[in-house]
Structures are given as C-alpha cells and as structure tokens.
C-alpha cells in the first residue's frame, strides 16, 4: 500500500513537471497543403526548427490540397480558430492582400519581433509576387516553381525519335507527337495544371497580357484578356491533339503526373517541382526541357511562378507572433533553402541559396535542374510577365478548366470557350472588386 502511494505521488510529480515544461513552450500552428514526399521534407524542416531552440514548438497540420487549405484557413478565421501561419498558393494571393486586417504583413511581423530580415535577399521574380506596389513584402515565399517540359527518353526511343532532339517550339513538339502516335504510343502528351501552364505561363512566356492593368497588379478594375489570337491558336492545337488521341486529359490538377511517373506518357508539361516524385518513382530515363513556345514570336520572355507563400494571420499574441517570425526567418536561412531547392525541384527563392547550390556542383550532377531558374530569370520582366494578381482567381481557374474541358472533348472551339471563360471570369472580377472596395 505504501508503495502504491509512492508510485502515485511520483507519477503526479512527473506529470506536473511535464505539464509545466510543455506550458513553457509557445505553440505555433502551421496549416499547409503538402503530403507525400513534400510532406516528409516539410516535417523535417519543422523538426529541425523545434530541435534548434527551446522557446517555441511549431505544430504543422495538412489541410488537404491548396484550395482546401486556403478555404479551411478562411473558415477558421471567421470562427476565430485560425492558425498562426497559413500556406496560401499564388492564386489566393490577391484574396489575402485585399483582406487587410486578416494578416500581419511580413515586414511588420519581422520588425515587431526584432528579427533580422532582408527582403532583398529573395529572388525578385519570386518576392515581387508577394510585395505591394510600394515595395512592402506581405508574405514569405515558401515554395515556388515554374512549368517545364518533362521527357520520357525511353518512350522517345520507342517512337523512333532522338531523345535529345530539339523540343523548344510547339511545332517541333507536334512533330514528335505525330511520330509517337504513328508508332502506337498510347499517351504521347499529357499536362498538369492546364490554366497555369497553357494560359497563365503561356501569356508571360509570349509577352502578351493575361489580364489588363498589368495582369491585375495595377488595380482591382482589371479585365481578363486571354482570348487573343495567339491564345486561341494554342488551345485549339491542344484540342486538335486531344481529338487525334495524341494528348490525353487526365484531370485539372496534377493527375497526369501519375501517368508520367508510371512511364505511360512521353511528354508532359508540369511544374519543375514534379522533380521530387519523378526522381523517386520513375523507372526510366527522364529529361527536363524548357517550356516550348511558338517560334513566330521572338525568343521567349520569362515564365512565372506557381507555389505558395506563408501568411502570418492576425489576432495572435505578441509572444506567438515572435515565434512565427523566428520560424519564418529560420525557413529563409540559406542552408534550409538550398536543401529544399535540391530535394524538391522548387526554385531557390533566395539568391544565396541559388548560389550555394551552384557552387556545390548540384546542377552538374543533376542536369536540367537549373532550367527552371534560368527560364524564370532569363529576361528583364515586363508588365505581362511579372505574375498575376487577380481576385477570386481560384474560382476563375475553375471556369477556365471547365471551358477547356469543352475544347478537349470537342464540344467547343477554342474561340468560343476562351471568349466564354473571359466573360464569366470578368463577372467574378467585378464581384470581387465590389466586395473589396
């Protein structure tokens, strides 16, 4: 009986002790959208931070895909149950920016916490996306990628093609697809993220506007403009390929990645960040190429980013904000950024990380991994190639996807589909403008 009492007492003592030691640490909640290999790498970063200091504990939670994470964050904000840090994909940027009062701007957060933070350390093509026109950085770039062309070299050989052949223009890609189809290859071409690759990046790459007012950077009264003859020509080509069985539509997001990794698809347009999964799963020789363009325009402009940034949501205690600032500063450290870049295929978002990766000889050992960075920064950005800042853009992408499905299934011509997408999208832009006046 005496023993029992002693045991209970000691358990109570340790429980108390454990309780206080947990309480002493400030908990920082981070909601994100990464599963699979990317989720593992993210978890690694968090663990490293938690082990590096004893004041804060970052707890990360996956809330589904990008859209689901954003929606979960917004719903939680309305209910006052939101996390400290929310991952928002580039498409949601305008919605967050317009919601003044929902977030603590990055420059403010860092200043209040006394964190040393240099916004100029970021690659401008990336940080420009998250910075106001008067140069204030609002959120922290986390993962940024840009679309490239992925090549299954084994299937190229099977199609009787030289796996190193020139695939820089869509015309040459078309010829390769013809040859592949003739040799009975079931899926010569597939693509992920239709609107992002074939309209948004397509516009920047050909230096034509996706929307007026510098793609929305210059004001909420922007209007969509992706129904120009060049856009129509490209989408019509994709539609024709779909009808001829050279291009197979697998879904709106990155569903086609599965087919490529399984070795079924010969050429795929997908984010440079497809690298992590392809490197892990592909049982064939693969190559990375620049995104093709139309030779009729001069040399291509630059492509734009996709990916996410981290927003510090408002309404948290000073103590927690300090922890948030410390964690975000940790994430932008050169060693963390360089490792992230090399593991995932996302761009090195700080210039120091890009330099470090280059000097370590990584690009030489892994040919093609530097293409995304080159493609993004090859020219001085123009009004058409800075990026996009459009409200309700997740919804507009949904409309674009719907209309493009109409083209692929042969129900609509590209002209009809893109005109309709522009018209429907503009209605939403006006509604967003009205709600955020």
């Amino acid at each position: 009986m005496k023993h029992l009492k002693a045991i209970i007492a000691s358990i109570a003592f340790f429980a108390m002790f454990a309780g206080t030691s947990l309480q002493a640490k400030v908990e920082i909640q981070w909601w994100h959208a990464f599963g699979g290999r990317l989720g593992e790498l993210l978890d690694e970063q968090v663990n490293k931070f938690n082990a590096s200091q004893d004041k804060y504990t970052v707890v990360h939670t996956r809330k589904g895909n990008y859209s689901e994470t954003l929606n979960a964050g917004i719903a939680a904000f309305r209910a006052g149950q939101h996390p400290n840090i929310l991952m928002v994909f580039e498409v949601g940027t305008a919605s967050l920016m317009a919601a003044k009062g929902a977030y603590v701007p990055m420059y403010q957060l860092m200043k209040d916490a006394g964190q040393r933070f240099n916004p100029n350390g970021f690659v401008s093509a990336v940080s420009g996306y998250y910075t106001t026109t008067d140069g204030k950085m609002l959120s922290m770039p986390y993962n940024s990628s840009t679309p490239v062309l992925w090549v299954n070299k084994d299937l190229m050989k099977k199609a009787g093609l030289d796996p190193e052949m020139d695939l820089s223009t869509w015309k040459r890609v078309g010829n390769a697809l013809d040859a592949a189809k003739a040799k009975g290859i079931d899926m010569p071409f597939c693509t992920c993220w239709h609107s992002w690759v074939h309209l948004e990046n397509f516009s920047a790459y050909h230096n034509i506007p996706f929307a007026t007012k510098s793609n929305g950077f210059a004001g909420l009264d922007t209007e969509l403009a992706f129904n120009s003859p060049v856009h129509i020509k490209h989408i019509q080509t994709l539609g024709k390929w779909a009808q001829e069985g050279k291009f197979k539509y697998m879904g709106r997001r990155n569903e086609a990645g599965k087919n490529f990794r399984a070795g079924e698809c010969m050429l795929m347009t997908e984010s440079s960040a497809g690298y992590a999964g392809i490197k892990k799963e592909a049982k064939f020789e693969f190559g990375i190429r620049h995104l093709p363009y139309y030779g009729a325009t001069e040399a291509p402009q630059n492509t734009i980013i996709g990916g996410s940034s981290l927003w510090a949501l408002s309404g948290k205690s000073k103590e927690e904000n300090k922890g948030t600032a410390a964690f975000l500063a940790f994430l932008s450290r050169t060693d963390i950024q360089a490792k992230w870049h090399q593991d995932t295929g996302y761009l090195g978002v700080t210039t120091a990380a890009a330099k470090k990766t280059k000097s370590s000889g990584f690009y030489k050992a892994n040919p093609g991994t530097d293409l995304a960075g080159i493609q993004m920064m090859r020219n001085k950005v123009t009004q058409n190639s800075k990026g996009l800042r459009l409200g309700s853009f997740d919804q507009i992408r949904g409309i674009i996807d719907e209309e493009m499905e109409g083209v692929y299934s042969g129900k609509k011509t590209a002209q009809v589909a893109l005109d309709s997408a522009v018209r429907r999208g503009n209605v939403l832009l006006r509604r967003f403008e009205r709600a955020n006046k």
Partner: protein
Amino acid sequence: MEKRVFFKGWWLPALLVAPQLLISFVFFFYPSGQAIWNSLFLPDPFGLKTEFVGLDNFRFLLSDPYYLASFKTTVIFSTAVSVSSMALGLYLAALADRLIKGAGVYQTLLIWPYAIAPAIAGVLWLFMFNGNIGLASYYLKALGYEWNHTLKGDQAMFLVILASSWGRISYNFLFFLAGLQAIPKSIIEAAAIDGASFWKRFGTIVIPLLSPITFFLLVVNIVYAFFDTFGVIHTITSGGPEQSTTILVYKVFSDGFVSQDLGSSAAQSVILLVLVGILTVIQFKYIERKVHY
C-alpha cells in the same frame, strides 16, 4: 375514424410540443432565417466587411446560365437515381420474397451496401472507373470503349448516378420486402385460383397494396438525391466536367465554401428552400391522393 383528444388548460400541451418546437427552431428556423438574411449581403471571404445589396445576389444567380443548367442537371440526376434504385429494389424484393431457402443470407447481402457511407461508396466506384488503375475502365477499353469521365459529361453523370443508386437499392429493397411480406397471402392465392397470371396479380394486387410504401420511398429518395448525394459527387467528379454533375446542393457548397462567395451561396439556399417546399406540397397534395392506405 380519427381520434381526437382535448387537453384542458394550455401548459401541458405547450410543454409536450416544446421539445419539437425547440428542435425546429434551432435546426430549421434559425439557420433558414440566417440564410435569408445573408442572401441580401455581399460579404468578403474573411468576414471583415459586408455590403447590403438587396436582391442583387438573386439577380446575379438567375443571369448565370450555369446556375439555370444546374436545375436541369438536378432533375435528371434525382429522377434517374430515384427511379433506378426503386425499380431495382422492387425487382430484388419480389425475387427475395419468393425464396424459400436461404432467404436470410440473400437479404443480408442485399442490405449490405446501405451500411457504406456515400463518400466511401463514391471512392469505391471511382477506383473501378479510374482512368489510370480502374478495372472497369480497363475492360471497357479492351472492348474498344473509351472511358474518361473526367472529360465526358455523360459518362460522369452515369457514374455518379450509378454510385448514388447503388447503396440506395438496399434501402428500397428493405422497405419493399417488408411491404410484400405484409400483403396477405390469401388474397394472392385467391386471385391465382381465379386464374390470374403472375403479372396480372402483380399489377392489380401487389402494386396498389404497395402504394403507401412506394409513395414514402419516392419522397425519401428524392430528398436523398437532392441532399445526401453530396459525398458521392464530391469524391467522384467535384461537379465537373464543365459543371455537368453540379446539382443544386453541390453548387451551394462549391460557391460558398470553395469560392467563398457566401452571399451567392446563401441566395441559392433560399431558392432551394422554396423549391423543396413547393415539391413537398405537390407530393402530398396530388400524389398522396392516389395512394391507398
């Protein structure tokens, strides 16, 4: 004869109906009132500011061709789900009713799918028809039929109807079987002795006697197709391609919680509320008259 009971005083009857009134208020009147109120505003997603817009949300909706198309989609979808699941349920019940040996086993197996949640049923069917790894799509391809429900609207519609009806067949089967077993054997035997064929007996005796159950199932199935098929649609098609499987309820969700347009979403809820009200009145006023109890 109807029985009528009169209470003296008012507090006991008030007390007895109070729980029901409370539940109706909390789960029906309060949320409906909120929906009506919100349908008059245009809020920003974060709930930081809101603007009174009167009936603009309704005007916006009724000028959206995709919203109008969603009415047609809903009618096609709910008719197909109700009719196919009720017809198959009745067919299987008629067969199971005639079983002498092993009836329990058949019945249990037929009821089984009802235990599966709609979202999980959706995933099951999605796996079978998945363009990459699906067994059904593989065999269809071998037969020379190109299956791609991510692109072809009619295939997507067929798949969501199939997945929604599947679990529902069990439910309908259960009720029809109970109904069949409640029909006195003597009536049917008497008709048989008079020389009525199986189909004659089925048409003139069984169907009329089943009409209360059929009516009940019709109401319940339409309500199911309208509201509870959300999980199936969300997992299989998310309303696509080109909104060809976006039924009204799914549009309320996708506009409100995916697109964060809560004003439009509330306006849609109000329209849906009115619609279901009208539907219920029609069902009870016109169809119930033809039902024999």
